[in-house]
């Protein structure tokens, strides 16, 4: 097997800087031209944004107000990057700089345009962080997200430690920063692969441009995703097998001597035939370093589990998948990950599962319901424009998955077995049956699929494991030989990739900010909550209008709700009277139910949301506000174009709500819990020691792990028993 070991000098993997010596003169001109093109693109993208009028935005979102020059600038940025890929050798600083500019441009454009950090959900993150900074603890009964407070504690700690008290800049600039951070571990994953530098850099580019799902805001998901990428990167870099096997050609039946031919045989070979591994041999590292890395993997797992409820499951699944396909030597790691996850769920999220055992397990296996809710189910009552955006999103996701599958097949047809990419692509689907996740699971799956999908799409265009030689044997007649040899032999592939890249960038700008009409947070939206919180001490009962029953659709106000003083605010929806916006009786009734602390709040973003997604008439908000302002029962507390707050002129004295006191993490006890708290650390210690021992054993000596296995087995049974007991006893 020499193919695996031979390192082609022109392969240009980012780990070695020795490439073909540069051609003097001509190369430099091309380089300067490409850099100038990129600079021009960035200028065209950003400079015309000064004159953008956000108020003119329609249901298609930000793209409806972006100037044509900005779109042209984006196209130039794409063209410049693709031109860099067409150069004969990699220019890493130029490629990296363009990737940086692209990330900031694509993921920062709305942030730069809008006066406040965009999109209401990030303001709830601010609320959690503010709660921890103020009370120094959490309160499991206020929100399920307090059960995994790792990320909020992290940001609260960093902000307090460095003396940053205004969270708004963090909320605003988190998306470009997190996307740049994602590229760091992703580069580490890419460098282990057997591919050309073009494929790797294009994959990194795609990873930025295909990430339209908007899970990169300041949130536990974004943070846990970063940890997931680090986890996978360390696994595939330093914990692969010493010599990995893919099925190879038998010596008798290699190549031309194969006897069985034909279509069936070819399909069989594509699936199961002899292949070379799609990964380079793992970099060598001393055992001590690998031990440190193993401990780091364990800490990554712990921190990820404390920060997010879905990601540790995917870490476990990714690790198990890599072990199953023999691309990871740490066979005990999936068990460790699974135990950490199960223990966290059992001990720390009691408040969440104890009250809704049926609901959680009801989601198990209801795959088809999840599919419908996640994709098509979200489009039912929406306006035509918003529905178009949603359709485009589904289309982009489908194209990405389809092209990734095609890329995988193309590599297999070349005899390369991309197991790491395949596992990382398939693992996210395992979470489909797990939990309903508010109908959002399809977005999450796409998000977690992206690292592998981008790679496989890059393979579709650049499938070669190393650069094709510039000069071919003149005796061999190549079909379209002129395109496939010489210094321009990469141009056709780069041209095809450019077409896809341009379409993807356009799609990104359309769908990433496609809901900007109601996803922007205006200054007055925040002010509305300040007005309510400052007007009185104690609890505030916020009444808000929903076009549909929010208990059924899982809705929340589309406002920066609870961005501070989380425990003081409670929410009561009233369902809109579709026929008559001037009918304010449900609102008045809702305010009366809140007693003296009731406020009705509405914002323009919220009204636009109801119009665009729930089919209320376009002037519903205006007519409702006029009716409220003219009603003798209602007093206007705040009324601006963007937000309005009302309360009753004579509110009833009862009921008076209590402000809940911090309830902590809510780890409740059961008879066996103390034993579990002893067994669990011991079990994790034994399993970790077992993996550390495995690193020191020569290959094939794994039976020397048996003492530790025997020790771990009863501990594992005990811990599982405690987890089951807790689940049965606590209700």
């Amino acid at each position, binding site marked *: *097997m*020499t193919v695996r070991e031979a390192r082609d000098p022109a392969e240009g993997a*980012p*780990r070695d800087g020795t490439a073909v010596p540069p051609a003097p003169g001509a190369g430099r001109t091309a380089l300067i031209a490409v850099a100038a093109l990129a600079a021009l693109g960035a200028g065209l993208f950003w400079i015309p944004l000064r004159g953008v009028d956000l108020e003119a935005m329609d249901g298609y979102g930000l793209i409806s107000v972006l100037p044509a020059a900005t779109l042209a600038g984006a196209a130039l940025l794409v063209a410049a990057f693709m031109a860099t890929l067409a150069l004969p050798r990699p220019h890493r600083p130029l490629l990296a700089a363009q990737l940086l500019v692209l990330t900031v441009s694509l993921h920062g454009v709305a942030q730069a345009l809008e006066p406040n950090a965009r999109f209401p959900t990030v303001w709830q993150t601010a609320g959690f962080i503010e709660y*921890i900074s103020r009370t*120094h*603890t*959490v309160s499991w009964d206020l929100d399920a997200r307090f059960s995994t*407070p*790792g*990320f909020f*504690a*992290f940001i*609260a*700690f*960093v902000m*307090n*430690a*460095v*003396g*940053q008290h205004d969270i708004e800049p963090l909320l605003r600039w988190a998306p470009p920063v997190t996307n740049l951070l994602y590229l*760091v*571990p992703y*580069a*580490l994953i890419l*460098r282990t692969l057997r591919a050309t530098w073009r494929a790797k850099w294009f994959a990194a580019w795609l990873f930025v441009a295909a990430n339209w799902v908007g899970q990169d805001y300041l949130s536990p998901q974004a*943070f846990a995703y*970063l*940890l997931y990428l*680090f986890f996978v*990167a*360390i696994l595939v*870099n*330093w914990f692969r097998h*010493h*010599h990995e096997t893919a099925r190879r050609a038998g*010596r008798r039946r290699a190549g031309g001597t194969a006897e069985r031919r034909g279509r069936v045989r070819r399909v069989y070979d594509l699936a199961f035939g002899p292949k070379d591994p799609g990964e380079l*041999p793992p*970099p*060598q*590292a*001393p055992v*001590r*370093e690998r031990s*440190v*890395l193993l401990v*780091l993997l364990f*800490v*990554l797992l*712990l*921190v990820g589990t*404390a*920060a997010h409820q879905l990601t540790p499951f995917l870490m476990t699944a990714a690790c198990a998948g890599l072990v199953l396909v023999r691309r990871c030597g740490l066979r005990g790691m999936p068990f460790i990950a699974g135990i950490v996850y199960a223990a966290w769920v059992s001990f720390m999220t009691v408040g969440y599962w104890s009250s809704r055992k049926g609901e959680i397990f009801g989601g198990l296996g209801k795959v088809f319901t999840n599919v419908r809710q996640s994709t098509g189910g979200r489009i039912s009552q929406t306006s035509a424009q918003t529905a178009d955006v949603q359709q485009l999103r589904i289309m982009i996701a489908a194209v990405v998955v389809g092209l990734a599958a095609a890329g995988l097949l193309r590599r297999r047809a070349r005899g390369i077995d991309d197991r790491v990419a395949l596992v990382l692509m398939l693992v996210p689907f395992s979470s489909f049956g797990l939990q309903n996740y508010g109908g959002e699971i399809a977005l999450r799956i796409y998000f977690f699929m992206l690292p592998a999908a981008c790679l496989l799409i890059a393979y579709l265009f650049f499938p070669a494991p190393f650069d094709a030689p510039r000069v071919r044997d003149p005796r061999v007649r190549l079909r379209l030989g002129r395109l496939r040899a010489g210094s321009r032999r990469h141009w056709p592939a780069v041209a095809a990739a450019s077409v896809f890249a341009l379409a993807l960038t356009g799609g990104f700008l359309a769908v990433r900010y496609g809901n900007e009409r109601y996803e922007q947070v205006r200054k007055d939206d925040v002010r509305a909550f300040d007005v309510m919180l400052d007007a009185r001490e104690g609890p505030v009962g916020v009444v808000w209008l929903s076009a549909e029953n929010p208990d059924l659709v899982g809705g929340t106000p589309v406002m920066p709700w609870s961005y501070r003083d989380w425990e003081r605010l409670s929410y009561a929806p009233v369902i809109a009277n579709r026929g008559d916006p001037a009918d304010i009786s449900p609102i008045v009734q809702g305010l009366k139910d809140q007693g003296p602390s009731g406020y009705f709040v509405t914002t323009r973003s919220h009204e636009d949301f109801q119009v665009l997604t729930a089919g209320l008439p376009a002037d519903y908000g205006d007519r409702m506000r006029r009716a409220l302002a003219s009603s003798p029962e209602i007093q206007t507390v705040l009324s601006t174009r963007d937000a309005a707050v009302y309360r009753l002129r004579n509110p009833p004295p009862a009921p008076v709500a209590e402000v809940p006191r911090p309830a*902590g*993490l809510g780890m409740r006890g059961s008879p066996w819990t103390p034993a579990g708290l002893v067994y669990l650390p011991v079990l994790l210690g034994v399993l970790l020691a077992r993996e550390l021992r495995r690193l020191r054993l020569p*290959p094939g000596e794994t039976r020397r792990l048996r003492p530790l296995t025997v020790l771990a087995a009863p501990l594992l049974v005990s811990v599982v028993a405690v987890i089951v007991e807790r689940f049965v006893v606590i209700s």
Partner: protein
Amino acid sequence: MTALLALLLFAVPALACASLLPGLDPVGRLVVSTSAAIVIVAGTAQIMLMLGAWSPGAGLIAVLTLSAALATAGRARRHPHPPAPPPPRNEAEDNDEDAWLYQD
């Protein structure tokens, strides 16, 4: 200024971890140290929260102490490093007496 302080908060544990990993390649060492710095700071915050001992000042001291401990461990074990062992040979080939026939 705050950005600089934040950078420092992560750079200290990152450098400490980097000193523990002299055997890795530079890029890998950098990336791994970054991730280690993030989990050290995040883990400190999480532990403070779970123990009911929330105090940013104490957390800072904890991060610094941990970094110092890691750096000390890295320094203590830094002896003249033996060259990396040769990559393990393919045993199947070694056992096969006719293997030389198929090498090119």
